């Protein structure tokens, strides 16, 4: 009795420490089938893939519920090696290749054929010598199967990006046991022409009887290549669609969910802004994984501008680039004057401030007390909270003033802590975020960049953080540019929302616009996006 499905997932659920990320997922994949998987950030795609690929992270966090049957047998992988053994391959978004190796060496990494050797009897199989002719032969075979133009002797570091991706795919194909290939956004870093070749390769692989699970944010790709499409949202499968019977709009609808009519939290206040405070012209930012490719944008004085988009599309790069944390090029005009890019000190001096998305990495001095964390930037940039002696020769830290400032913000932002002397490390995520905000507020900025202010904090704290931002905006007229992966959050607070796709602005919508419109922009449907705006 042979199972006609290669992979069957029955009611698979997964939670991380009580936080449910996958709910009763049922997924069936036949050999040679290409399944497209789409979903917003946090919809559970990556967790689902990790479960299938047996990532040890899943096992170490308590495993999953439900059943997975692969090739007719129930499996429960403890590590990726188990999955590899069983015949599941994975092509990662970021290349897992050795740059100094040739394509051949990478394709056969740790699966090299060897020639037996007497010494192996004494020591280990590993002292067998490599069988280079055989290696080359196998690499050529794998490349041949893909029907791509890839030089097996070329070093990966000298290859164009597309060829690196082929190398990864060829490595997975080379494993004779591979029956299922998971491709996690294999086209994300490729240009369109390169992506087209990858799509062809995927079809070719499927025609060889290997099933493919294909994740992409480019709906066009999903629609061209997949046999059917699975849409995930909030950890659940929303819908399975056939490409022939659907369109991009429908997919986007299932992905982001329909507006439920009442639009309770959405910011409906219509405010008028005339003065431009920040003009961004052709901004390029080289932030790994969040590259910005020539964005132009005008920010009005006093508004809250939301910046949204899927992870890796570049939305985070804008604030980081302007604030000089990652190399940037282009022009940024602030109040009629051009900002010196890549000079954080000067930009802070001019009255811009930034709350980083990397709270623990960049935002805080975890091993220092709260009062330091809050006052540090103001002290260094503006020379506040210092006592000057000997005509300013000695700038003594005014610990009392610093503590007072900290206490003030602890009260205003309701930061829960024992005292202002507590270490930042010991606070909860939400309170840490408030400390970051306090740090920025202490600079009295005219323009405040806030990135992912609610990431990783609980719902109550989320609301508090957003309310604080809104209040600050209304009270001081501070222009706020808030970047977030959570669309709903942006819609509750922003006056306008810009959606970034592939490092460019896909469109700017009012918060009251339909969710589906946002979804389409996120998926790169720029033209329809503009069209909707004009309707």
């Amino acid at each position, binding site marked *: 009795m042979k199972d006609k499905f290669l992979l069957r997932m029955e009611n698979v659920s997964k939670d991380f420490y009580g936080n449910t990320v996958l709910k009763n997922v049922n997924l069936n994949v036949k050999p040679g089938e290409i399944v497209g998987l789409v979903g917003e950030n946090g919809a559970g795609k990556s967790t689902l893939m990790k479960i299938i690929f047996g990532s040890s992270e899943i096992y170490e966090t308590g495993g999953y519920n439900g059943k997975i049957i692969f090739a007719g047998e129930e499996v429960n992988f403890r590590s990726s090696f188990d999955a590899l053994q069983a015949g599941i391959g994975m092509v990662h978004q970021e290349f897992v290749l*050795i*740059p100094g190796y040739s394509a051949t060496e990478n394709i056969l990494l*740790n699966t090299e054929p060897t020639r037996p050797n007497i010494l192996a009897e004494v020591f280990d*199989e590993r002292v067998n010598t*490599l069988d280079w002719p055989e290696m080359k032969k196998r690499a050529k075979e794998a490349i041949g199967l893909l029907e791509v133009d890839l030089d097996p002797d070329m070093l990966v570091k000298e290859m164009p990006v597309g060829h690196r991706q082929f190398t990864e795919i060829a490595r997975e194909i080379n494993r004779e046991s591979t029956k299922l290939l998971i491709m996690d956004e294999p086209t994300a870093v490729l240009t*369109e*022409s390169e992506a087209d070749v990858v799509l062809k390769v995927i079809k070719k692989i499927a025609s060889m009887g290997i099933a493919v699970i294909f994740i992409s944010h480019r709906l066009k790709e999903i629609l061209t290549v997949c046999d059917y499409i699975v849409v995930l949202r909030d950890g659940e499968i929303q819908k399975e669609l056939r490409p022939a019977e659907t369109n991009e709009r429908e997919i986007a609808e299932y992905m982001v969910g329909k507006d439920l009519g009442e639009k309770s939290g959405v910011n409906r206040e219509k405010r008028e802004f005339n003065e431009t405070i920040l003009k961004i012209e052709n901004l390029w930012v080289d932030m790994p994984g969040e590259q910005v490719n020539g964005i132009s944008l005008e920010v009005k004085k006093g508004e809250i501008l939301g910046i949204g988009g899927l992870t890796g599309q570049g939305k985070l790069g804008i604030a980081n680039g302007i604030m000089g944390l990652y*190399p940037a090029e282009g022009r940024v005009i602030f109040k009629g004057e051009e900002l010196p890019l890549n000079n954080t000190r000067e930009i802070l001096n001019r009255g811009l401030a930034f709350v980083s998305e990397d709270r623990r990495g960049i935002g805080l001095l975890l091993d220092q007390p709260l009062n330091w964390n809050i006052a540090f930037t103001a002290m260094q940039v503006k020379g506040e909270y210092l006592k000057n002696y000997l005509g300013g020769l000695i700038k003594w830290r005014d610990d009392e003033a610093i503590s007072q400032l900290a206490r003030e913000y602890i009260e205003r932002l309701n930061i829960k802590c024992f005292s202002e002397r507590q270490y930042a490390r010991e606070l909860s995520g939400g309170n840490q975020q408030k400390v970051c905000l306090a740090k920025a507020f202490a600079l009295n900025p005219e323009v405040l960049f806030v990135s992912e202010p609610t990431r990783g904090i609980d719902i109550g704290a989320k609301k508090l953080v957003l309310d604080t931002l809104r209040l600050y905006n209304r009270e001081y007229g501070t222009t706020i540019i808030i970047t977030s992966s959570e669309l709903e959050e942006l819609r509750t607070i922003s006056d306008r929302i810009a959606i970034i796709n592939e490092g460019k602005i896909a469109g700017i919508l009012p918060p009251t616009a339909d969710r589906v419109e946002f979804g389409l922009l996120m998926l790169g449907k720029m033209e329809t996006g503009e069209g909707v705006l004009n309707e």
Partner: protein
Amino acid sequence: MKNQDSLKTVNPVKQFFINYAVPILFIIMIVFAAPMSGLSPVFLINEVMTRLTRNSFLILSLLIPVLAGMGMNFGIVMGAMAGQIGLILITDWQIVGVPGILLAMLISTPIAIVFGYFTGIVLNKARGREMVTGMMLGYFMNGIYQLLVLYGMGKIIPIRDKSILLSRGYGIRNAISLDGIRQSLDNVIKLDIMGIQIPLVTLAVIALNCLFIIWFRKTKLGQDMRTVGQDMEVARMAGIDVEKTRIISIIISTVLAAYGMIIYLQNIGTINTYNSHEQIGFFAVAALLVGGASVSRASILNVFIGVVLFHTVFIVSPRAGKELIGSAQLGEYFRVFITYGVIAFSLALYAWRNRIEAENERKKAMMLRRASLQNEAEEGGNL
């Protein structure tokens, strides 16, 4: 546009001079100092030949950890200690000649394996700063070695030959003479070509080591080490046992260093019990770096170029110093300065170059991305 400079490939001539700054510097020094020293070519060649046979094996022992991405293995001093323990024991047992040398090697092997295993474990814990840790571990193990040789031998480990013991009755003397095995490997077959002495067997042993390294690089284990050296994470994802692979590379290095030390000392003929091994690490590393190797790339050719250049300067500099300034002591200090200076300079240059290269890579990738995006946009516009 300023960024376009970085797109241009670096001038290959300039690249060559940057990569081989140290060897070029040494060649220049030799060109100036050799005639000044007034040493005859035959004498000089003989001396260089002696150093070549004496040091090459030791320096070769550094190659495999470089392959595994662990940098210069300053921990070879522990191999040297193992070799010395072997030599002390055979001296006590009065085993002489080539059998003595072989027996010393045989005894030092398990000791070196244990030392190497220990070093490997420690270095795995100190990932990212293997070199400084290896060096400090060498100093630390020197204490253990002293405990063993200065206090243990003659007390816990029986030593019958009173002539190698300190007068107090235990502990090995500061210097013991290796009369029984002095140059016995070198003298098995010695050619004399126009006054130049060529110890064939020692050279053959060195050649054997080279063959071993060449062969080893071609094995699966060698390939795995290369992989680990290039990118530990990728290696781990591919299923290679990174930790074990690194430990093996250090074990091999330590064992080879033990043999290297024995070859070195049989040529010299005496052991400075508490000093001989101390400086072995520095001198070997310095010579390898002079040969044009770097922390991440070292070949057999680098070893031989390094020995020749480094030791020629060593031989020539005291004499040249004396001729130039009239002080032989100066040349002595100059040697030490050269050794340390070369290591400092090479390591700094390497770290610095890595940073610049990473930055250039980044700029280049950005430019390429920009260019391809703009091309696509133009093509899209044309359609």
